[in-house]
């Protein structure tokens, strides 16, 4: 078989593998919540486990990992031997970029010119350097740029909910307005389709996310850049691409040009990585995705991938990073970290009341050193209560999860978020332990609460409080009405020893604009500095039988009792 035919076969195999990887990603995304009572499969984290940037970044910032990153090591070894085949064959975000780039020929009239390497492709290495320096000094913005995290966040917080909204809203409109011609109802057609989509394709109630629009716009922007340059993100920005490029200066599988090349440049027109396949002495192994497009295109059969010893350099091309630029990137990373830490909140001088974190979340510094901003916990949360922050946790904590009780509360018998978190920023806790963790404290707004402000009976909050001994109790009061009569009402109170801040009270409160009982981060277990309540004090109610456990919550604590590592 000549090289062109072999290469064409390989290109088709590659496309199948790419399609399979993207499909697997979608399937795993879908599987995050499907059966809430069974423990989630470890396969859910598959793509995060494959990605070596995540364990490297996490290890640099916290010096520990939840488990040995075997799959990431396999990726690295494969990259050292074969070059950036991960980018070309596996990366699901890469597949999205590939697919969009392929559309380019339908969008732009001019055919793609010869696409050779430019210095701009160094940008991803500088970004990588900046992020790694930031990680060394204890900050974890890797997740903002990491492709797995980015793709999951965009699909989970924007694309998937958007698609679900379109389908479900249309179907509901048809159902409620019920257009019909005689006895022929449109809903007879739409309802079965809707039910199939809802039960099988989407598998859960539609989610909504604060800031989903921004995430969608950014993702769309990144994807649309492919119409300007093929695989724009992969070439110029992706820090994982940079990491894998750093690992592939001397691969075993190399592109070799034989004499006979006429310099037609067809291969370079098809190269998505701008790796210079048409320049024999200048082929860029650190850019090449191993996609075999070039070999499949060559009509003369003068280029091919061959296995060669890794010792000699594959071409005269070097990574060629400017020391000055690298230092600037590193300094930029450090400066960014300092900028993050300028705010009082980042140094635990103040606590944001709305920053109620998921159960099992570590103290804020330790949490931000691990959180990937990937959105898996948000997708898993059965009530849709976990939302991405914008600035509530500072710029450092952008898109990290916060519990917004107005939208969804923390289900008492659920500990999914900790079980799906890829870096254990939210620790996986057994249910009994999770149920003792205080996320915050519920506080009555007696200027609104019906029995206090409006002389009406209510207590929906107390009705729903899930703790075995309810954390909301009532005192029966005799109150005067405007007519001078006396009525008897139950007025609710929160027992601060029992309240775990789950937020169901706020969620069910009849005030849907601003609830009359609200959970703030006060008294959260993870921060000893954010505790207004002296535990176990006999007051309005009897002291609880057991008090909550005491992990050190100080943001500066070096000896936090956590089984998954120090700091």
């Amino acid at each position, binding site marked *: 078989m000549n090289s062109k035919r072999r290469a064409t076969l390989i290109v088709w195999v590659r496309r199948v593998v790419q399609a399979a990887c993207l499909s697997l990603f979608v399937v795993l995304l879908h599987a995050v919540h499907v059966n809430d*009572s069974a423990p989630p499969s470890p396969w859910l984290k598959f793509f995060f486990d494959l990605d070596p940037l995540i364990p490297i970044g996490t290890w640099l910032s916290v010096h520990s990992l939840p488990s040995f990153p075997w799959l990431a090591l396999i990726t690295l070894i494969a990259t050292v031997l074969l070059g950036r085949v991960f980018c070309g064959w596996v990366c699901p975000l890469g597949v999205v970029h590939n697919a969009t780039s392929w559309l380019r020929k339908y969008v732009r009239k001019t055919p793609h010119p010869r696409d050779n390497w430019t210095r701009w492709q160094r940008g991803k290495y500088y970004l990588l350097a900046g992020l790694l320096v930031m990680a060394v000094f204890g900050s974890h913005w890797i997740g903002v740029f990491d492709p797995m995290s980015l793709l999951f966040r965009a699909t989970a917080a924007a694309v998937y909910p958007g698609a679900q909204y379109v389908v479900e809203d249309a179907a509901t409109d048809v159902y409620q307005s019920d257009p019909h011609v005689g006895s022929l109802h449109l809903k007879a057609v739409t309802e079965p389709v809707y039910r199939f989509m809802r039960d099988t394709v989407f598998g859960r109630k539609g989610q909504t996310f604060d800031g989903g629009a921004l995430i969608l716009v950014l993702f769309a922007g990144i994807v649309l850049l492919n119409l300007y340059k093929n695989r724009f993100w992969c070439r110029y920005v992706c820090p994982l691409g940079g990491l894998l490029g750093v690992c592939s200066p001397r691969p075993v599988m190399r592109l070799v040009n034989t004499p006979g090349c006429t310099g037609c440049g067809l291969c370079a027109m098809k190269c998505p990585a701008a790796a210079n396949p048409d320049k024999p002495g200048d082929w860029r192994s650190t850019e090449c995705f191993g996609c075999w497009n070039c070999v499949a295109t060559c009509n003369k059969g003068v280029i091919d991938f061959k296995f060669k010893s890794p010792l000699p350099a594959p071409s005269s091309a070097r990574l060629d990073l400017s020391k000055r630029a690298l230092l600037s990137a590193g300094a930029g990373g450090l400066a960014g970290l300092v900028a993050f830490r300028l705010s009082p909140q980042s140094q635990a001088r103040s606590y944001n009341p709305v920053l109620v974190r998921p159960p099992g979340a570590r103290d804020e510094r330790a949490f931000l050193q691990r959180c990937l901003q990937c959105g898996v916990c948000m997708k898993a949360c059965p009530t849709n209560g976990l939302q991405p922050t914008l600035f509530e946790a500072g710029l450092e904590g952008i898109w990290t999860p916060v519990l917004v009780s107005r939208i969804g509360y923390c289900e*008492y*018998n*659920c500990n999914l978020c900790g079980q799906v978190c890829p870096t254990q920023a939210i620790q996986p806790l057994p249910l009994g332990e999770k149920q003792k963790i205080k996320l915050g404290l519920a506080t009555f707004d007696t200027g609104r609460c019906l029995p206090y402000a409006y002389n009406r009976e209510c207590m929906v909050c107390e009705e729903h409080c899930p703790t075995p001994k309810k954390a909301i109790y009532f005192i029966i009061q005799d109150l005067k009405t405007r007519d001078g009569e006396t009525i008897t009402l*139950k007025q609710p109170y929160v027992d601060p020893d029992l309240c775990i801040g789950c937020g169901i009270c706020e969620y069910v409160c009849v005030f849907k604009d601003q609830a009359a009982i609200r959970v703030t981060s006060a008294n959260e277990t993870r921060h000893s500095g954010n505790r207004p309540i002296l535990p176990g004090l006999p007051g309005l109610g009897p002291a609880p039988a057991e008090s909550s456990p005491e992990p050190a919550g100080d943001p500066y604590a070096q000896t936090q009792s956590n089984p998954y590592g120090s700091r």
Partner: protein
Amino acid sequence: MVRHTRREFLKRTAMAGGALAAGPLMSTVPFGIASAQESAAPPVAPGRDGSAPLLQMCIARWKGASAASPDEMKTLATKLTEQAVATLGGMNRFVKRGDVVWVKPNMAWDRAPEFAANTNPDVVATLVRLCLDAGAKAVKVGDKTCNEDKKSYPSSGIEAAVKAAGGEIVYIDDGRFKEMAINGQRLDKWLVYPDIVESDLVINVPIAKHHSISKVTVCMKNYMGVAGGQRGQWHQDLATCLCDITRFMKPRITVVDAIRILTGNGPTGGNIADVKRLDTIAAGTDVVGLEAFGTELLGCRPEESKMVTAAQKAELGQMDYRKSALREIEVA
């Protein structure tokens, strides 16, 4: 051969007339009561086993060996339910061949059956089976839950039990409620789930529980599960709103699960110490009588319950259930 003499004719007429006159005297239903339930009940037919027609309430108590294991509990629950319904006249009294039945349990909470926050799953499954045996075309089971339905349905054990019995589990879709005319004293219109009210029969299967606001939650509060929207508002005048929804639902049969009852920290429960085993099922057509019975089980006097007294005043039934057509049975 009968001789057609005048004497013979007079004898026969006298016997027939005597039988006609004796019939009402022998029946256990006093003529005085003309509750809404009688008009709502289907045309009278004696039960298959010959039990008296128009029985309004049956209380079935377990007197067999004490049950502990899941299998023993299942047998207990199944037998109690079967016998209670059979004493009422069998499910055929309520289900016609081809009917679509909705069984409405309390499955609102993400709690396992032992915590007595939701209806006993074996009771629900037995009712499903009885309806199917009586010729129902389909039996659907669902509830607008308070916790996430994807957690509450499986945790309650009802989802698995119903599917095993051949019933259909329905997850309530929030976008499918429709505004309906309740025409109540307090509720004018409210969002109700069409699937439920369009069924031919709704069987209300609550569990008797402590509830801080209403002291006790039994039959009428269970009807909240058919309503959507801001049901939290109802607590501002709970007794009246519950009477409104109960009247709207036109109860025909209610089965009260008192196998396990929740005596404190209701309606969510969560403390096994609050659960008390009574091994009792009460079934009947008079929702107020059953409400009163449930109230008594939880240690409260029906006269002191706002729900019961309001329902009595609204003429939804008879709170003094001992005066109605009641039979108490022991099951083993």
